[in-house]
């Protein structure tokens, strides 16, 4: 694990710490993506590259456009303009299910466990290229039984790893919030993705499960998968990410390794305002809000 970490740090040895920095081997490249809702520009990303085989965190204050950006990249929303590609394949106008089939699988901020399906059904559903999912073949169980048995086996293996195996025949609705997060991640793995996009994986997860979720995400890197995640929990960002991208007001304002990011003046300004460390009196308060706006949208 330690070795792996240092390897992934190597990916970034020659990468500049500027927004939109070029990566050694990007799996995902986004260019000039903007999305506005009426007069509000929610996302206006000039350039972003995501390094293959590394864990990249996407952070930013509330309303920075992180989730909207996620939705755009995964086909759940359409940008007003912009281009983006996975492994060099353009994803513009591609419906979300095709994006997933290409190997980019996402999870959701509000967990989407399929409540009235059992845990094992949640898992088996996600397996790719199932013969029995065709309408015609569904009528002839002998054509898909064997594959279904293999899928069950693989589902159970993953569930064991995620310590959900005892729950396999329970409805997903019977799981706790944290377990649902685990299930959603486990389910995403059934699709065998290259790039996993996690939208706030730690939200609402208790500290004990948090640790296990962290290990699972680190484990993905060991398996050579790429992770891009949105998160507010800075401990998690510091602990597992190799590279951090900071968004504020729809733009990427900083990029760099986690340690450099916490000392970056732009980031601090975006989160806390320009004058967060000066004392407040009536005059400086109005100054601060003016300045912080200027500071972020530079």
């Amino acid at each position: 694990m330690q070795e792996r970490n240092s390897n992934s740090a190597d990916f970034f040895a020659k990468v500049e710490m500027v927004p939109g920095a070029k990566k050694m081997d990007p799996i995902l490249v986004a260019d000039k993506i903007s999305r506005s809702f009426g007069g509000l520009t929610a996302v206006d990303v000039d350039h972003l590259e995501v390094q293959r085989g590394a864990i990249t965190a996407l952070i930013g204050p509330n309303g920075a456009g992180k989730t909207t950006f996620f939705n755009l990249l995964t086909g759940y929303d359409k940008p007003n303009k912009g281009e983006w590609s996975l492994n060099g394949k353009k994803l513009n106008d591609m419906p979300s299910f095709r994006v997933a089939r290409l190997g980019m699988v996402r999870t959701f901020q509000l967990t989407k466990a399929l409540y009235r399906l059992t845990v094992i059904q949640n898992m088996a559903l996600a397996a790719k290229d199932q013969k029995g999912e065709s309408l015609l073949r569904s009528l002839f169980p002998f054509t898909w039984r064997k594959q279904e048995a293999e899928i069950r086996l693989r589902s159970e293996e993953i569930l064991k790893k995620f310590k959900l195996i005892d729950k396999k025949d329970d409805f997903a609705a019977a799981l706790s919030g944290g377990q649902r997060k685990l299930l959603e991640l486990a389910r995403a793995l059934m699709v065998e993705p290259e790039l996993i996009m996690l939208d706030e994986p730690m939200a609402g997860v208790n500290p004990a499960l948090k640790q296990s979720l962290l290990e699972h995400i680190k484990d993905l890197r060991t398996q050579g998968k790429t992770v891009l995640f949105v998160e507010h929990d800075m401990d998690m960002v510091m602990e597992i990410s190799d590279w951090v991208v900071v968004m504020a007001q729809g733009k990427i304002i900083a990029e760099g390794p986690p340690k450099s990011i916490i000392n970056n003046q732009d980031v601090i300004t975006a989160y806390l305002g320009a004058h967060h460390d000066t004392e407040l009196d009536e005059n400086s308060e109005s100054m601060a809000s003016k300045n912080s706006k200027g500071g972020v949208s530079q």
Partner: protein
Amino acid sequence: MDFLFIIQQTLGATIGVNTIIFALAAIGLNMHFGYTGLLNFGQAGFLAVGAYSVAVSVMSFEIPLFIAFLIGILNSVLFALILGIPTLRLRADYLAIVTIAASEIIRKVARSATFNDLLGGSDGISGKFGKDFFDLNPFKSGLETSIIRFSGNDLWVVIVGWAIVAIITFLMWVMVNSPWGRVLKAIREDEDAVSSLGKNVYLYKMQSLIIGGVIGSIAGFIYALSRQSVQPDNYSTALTFFAYTVLILGGAARVFSPIIGAMIFWFLIVFIEQMLRQAVTAGYIPEWLIGVNQVGQIRFMLMGLGLMLLMIYRPQGIFGDKKELALDARA
């Protein structure tokens, strides 16, 4: 009171033609609503498409009946496509609005004066368009026992009808327990999650709409054949809501619930009606309270009351699982 007559009527209705028609209509809805979560409020439209396709093909175009069935199925597929292409990408409630409108459009067009020559206006189409079917009947003498009674034609419709119900129910059972059915159930729970796993949600919803619609049109065939006539106002929205009642009585997303639901529905309607009628005639219920002419209305009131009680004390239906129903609250 003539209890033997009441039993005879009630039993006849419980396994009779109407039960078969409503069971099939509800099986289609079970595919749409129970398994896929599609709120189709236009099931009557699918029955109308089936019924009119058969009647018009045979009566106006002299097409052989068994080819007319194929035309009916083709037309219902077409109807499903027309409904689904614009609406299935939208949220579920849009489908509800569009389907209820579409089924009413079909009924209004069918009863319009403009197409009087072809569709028969508000009188519909009557005639011997089912002749080819009834010619095959080996039980022309019908069934005559003390507790159940069917005419020759009815007996033939009932036998063939239940055979069709059995075959379709078996096929449904195989399908919903396959990975295909698993995708449908997952779509019912959360579309976005399913598409994030690489499944083409739109395609599956379309398949579900078509299959449930075709099953509805088969119910329409039986409706038309059993009466040897098609009347536009039989295919009003009330038919759709009765079919929903049947489905929910049995419990949505259970393969056998439409059958049991339809049986209970018709058992109750006919049993209550016959009991009231006999009681009024025999003088057990005074004339000033319920007259003979009011029985028809009163039975629906009592039926409604019965359904309310059922929904209060057994909201999951006969086959449903109360635990599962509670999960809907997204606990």
